[in-house]
C-alpha cells in the first residue's frame, strides 16, 4: 500500500476509538432517559437547535469544497472555504454556549441538578469539546492554506477533514438521541 494510506488508516483508527467513546455516553443517556427523580425534565426546557444543526451540517459541505479546491491547486479558494467552515463551527459553538446559558441561568439546570442534567451536559459537552479541537485544526488549515504551505500536504488536509466529518456525524446521533427521542 502507498504511503497515503498510513495517515488514512491512522485516522480511521482514531475515529473508531472516538465512536466507541461516544457510544458509551449515548448508551448512558438512553439508559437514564426518564429516570430522573426531579425536574427540570427535557420536554420542559429543551428546544430544537435547528439553526445550529444547519450550520454544523453545512460545514461538512464547505470543508469538502475546500479539500476539492486544494486538490485542484486553488490555495486561496481552499483557504476561504476553510475559513467559512471555521466560522460555521464557531457559530455552532456559540449556539451551544447560548443554550447552556439559558438552561443554567434560566432554568437552573446544571450537571448536578438531576439525572437529566448529568448525561445531557456530558454528552453535549463531549461533542462540543470535539468541535473545539476541530476549530483549532481548521484554523491551522486556514493559516497554512493562505501561507501556501498546504500545497505540499493535500493528503493531510483531507485526513483532517475526515475528523470534521466525523464530528458532524456524531452531532446527527446526538441530535437524534437528545433532541428527538429524548424530548
Amino acid at each position, binding site marked *: 500500500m502507498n504511503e497515503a494510506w498510513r495517515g488514512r*488508516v491512522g485516522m480511521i*483508527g482514531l475515529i473508531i476509538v472516538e465512536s466507541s467513546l461516544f457510544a458509551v455516553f449515548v448508551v448512558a443517556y438512553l439508559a437514564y432517559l426518564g429516570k430522573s427523580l426531579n425536574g427540570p425534565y427535557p420536554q420542559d426546557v429543551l428546544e430544537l437547535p435547528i439553526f445550529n444543526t444547519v450550520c454544523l451540517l453545512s460545514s461538512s459541505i464547505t470543508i469538502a469544497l475546500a479539500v476539492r479546491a486544494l486538490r485542484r491547486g486553488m490555495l486561496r479558494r481552499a483557504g476561504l472555504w476553510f475559513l467559512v467552515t471555521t466560522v460555521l463551527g464557531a457559530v455552532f459553538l456559540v449556539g451551544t454556549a447560548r443554550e447552556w446559558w439559558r438552561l443554567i441561568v434560566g432554568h437552573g439546570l446544571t450537571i448536578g441538578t438531576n439525572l437529566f442534567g*448529568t448525561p445531557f451536559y456530558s454528552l453535549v459537552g463531549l461533542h462540543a469539546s470535539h468541535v473545539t479541537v476541530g476549530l483549532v485544526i481548521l484554523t491551522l488549515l486556514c493559516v497554512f492554506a493562505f501561507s501556501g504551505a498546504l500545497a505540499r500536504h493535500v493528503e493531510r488536509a483531507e485526513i483532517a477533514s475526515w475528523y470534521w466529518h466525523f464530528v458532524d456525524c456524531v452531532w446527527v446521533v446526538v441530535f437524534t438521541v437528545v433532541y428527538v427521542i429524548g424530548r
Partner: protein
Amino acid sequence: MSVLSETLVRRQGTAAHRLTLGLLHDWVVTVDHKRLGIMYVVTALVFMVIAGLEASTMRLQLAWSGLHVVPPETFNRFFTMHGTTMVFLFGIPLVFGFGNYLVPLMIGSRDLAFPRLNAFGFWVFLFGGILLYFSFIGGDGLYGAGSAPAVGWFAYAPLTARAFTRGNATDYWILAILVSGFGTIATAINLVTTILTMRGPGMTLRRMPIFVWEMLTVSALTLIILPPLSAAQIMLLLDRFLGAHFFDTQAGASAVMWQHFFWFFGHPEVYVLILPGFGFASEIIPVFSRKVVFGYVTLVAASVGIGLIAMSTWAHHMFVVGMGSTLNAAFAASTMLVGVPTGIKIFNWLGTMYGGKIRFSTPMLFCCAFLFQFLCAGLTGIMLSAAPFDWQLSDSYFVVAHFHFTLIGGLVFTAFAAMYYWFPKVTGRMLSERLGRWHFWLFVVGFNLTFLTMHVPGLLGMPRRIYTYAGDRGWEIWNLIATLGVPLQVLAILIFVVNIGVSLRRGAPAGDDPWDAWTLEWATTSPPPPYNFEVVPVVSSRRPLWDLKHPDDPDGPHE
C-alpha cells in the same frame, strides 16, 4: 606526574559522565521502535516485581487465620494496587512492548507507522504508572502519607462515590489509568496502521507470522474496548468533582451501569493480554518442534474469532447481580462459545508438536507448561461460565485461582518463553540455559503450589479480598500451602533477574539466528541496526528464512 594523572582521571571522569548522559539522552529522545519496545518490557518487569511484592505480602497475611502482618487498610490498598498494576502496568506494556519490538521486524518494516506517536504512548504510560504509585504519598494530599486506592481493581460503584471514599487516592487511580489508557490507544492505532500499510515486499496477510496476527487482533480490539473504560472513568470523575449522578442511586441512577461499562472493557481486556501469549507460543512451538505450525488458517481464524466473541461475554462477571435468566443464559452461552476457538488453538499447538523433533530448551519448556496450565484455566473457565455454578463460587478464591491460571499460566509463562527466545535477538547474547532451567522448575512448582491449591479454599467457600478468617473453616492448611509456593516463585524471579544481569555481560554470543528459526527478525543482525534491514527480504511463503536457507525446497508450493 601526579598532576598529569589527576587531569587524566578528571578528563576520563568527565568523559564517562558525558557518555552516561549521552546514553540517557539517547534513550529519552528515541523514537526507535526497538528501544521503545525494550523500555516498555523493562518497565513492565519493574512493575511486575512491585506488584509481586504486594501479592507476597497478602499471601503472608493469609497464611494462617488471625494473622496481623499488615493493617487491614494496607491490605485493601495492596490488593487494589496489585490488580491494577498487573493489568495496566505489567500486562498491557508487556504485550505492547513485545508488539513494538517484534512487529516491524517480523513484517519487514523499518519502523512503526508513527514513531513519534509511539514515543508519546510510552511516556504517557510511564507517567500514568508513576502517578498511580505517587498516590502512596499523595493520596491524602501529602500530609497523611501511606494512602493509596483501596477500592479493588474494578472500582465498583457506589464504593467509589465521594461519600464512601474520601481523600484523593481513588482520583489517582482514575487519572493514572485514564492517562496510561491514552498511551495504550495511541500504540494500538500505531500497530494497526503499521500492520495494514507497512508490510514488506511479498508479506501478504496470509503469510504474516501468527504473532503479528495476534497483535493486529489485539490492537483492533483495544480500539473498541478501551474507550468505554475511559468514558466510565470520565463519568466517575464528573461524579466525584462536579456532583454529577452517573452512578448515584439516590438520584435514580444505577450502580450496575459501572459494572457494565467496566466489564465491557474488562473482559475483552483479558483477551488483549492472552492473545499475544498465544502468539508467543505459536512462534516458539513450531521452531522447537522443527515443524511448520499446524493449521495456520484455523489458528488465525480462531484468534480473530476470539477477538470478536470477546466483546459479547462481559456480563458473565455479573451473574450474581441478578440480571434475569434470559441475560444470564445469553452470556453463559457466549462465554462457553469462546472455549471453541481456544480449544482449536490447543489442538493447533499439539498438532505442531506431534511427530516433531522437539528440543526442550527453556522457551519450549515454558510453552509446554503453558499448554497444561492454560488448559486447566480453560476448564475452570467453562465451569464458571455456567451461571448457577458461578452463583456458588463468584468472588471466591476459586475465581482468583482461575484467573491467575489464565493470566500467569497463559501470559506470564509464554512471556518468559518469549524473553528466553528473543533475548538473543535483542542483546546479541544468549541467556543461560542452566539458570533458565532453575527459573522454569522453581516457577512451575511454586506457581502450582500457590494457585492449584488455591482452588480448594475457594470451593470450601473462602471469599476473595478478606483480610483474615476464623480458624474453624478448614481453610488454614490450604492457605499455608499456597503461601509456601511464594518463596519458590520469588526465588525463580530472582534467578531470572540474575540470569539477565550475568548474560548481558558474559552470555554466549548469539549470532543472527541461534534457534534456526524462520521468521524475518532472525534475518537481520543481533541486535538489529536502527534501520532493521539493509535490504528488506522479499517474502514468498510463511517461513521466509526457510526459503532462504533451503532454496532447493521452498515452502511456497506446499502452502
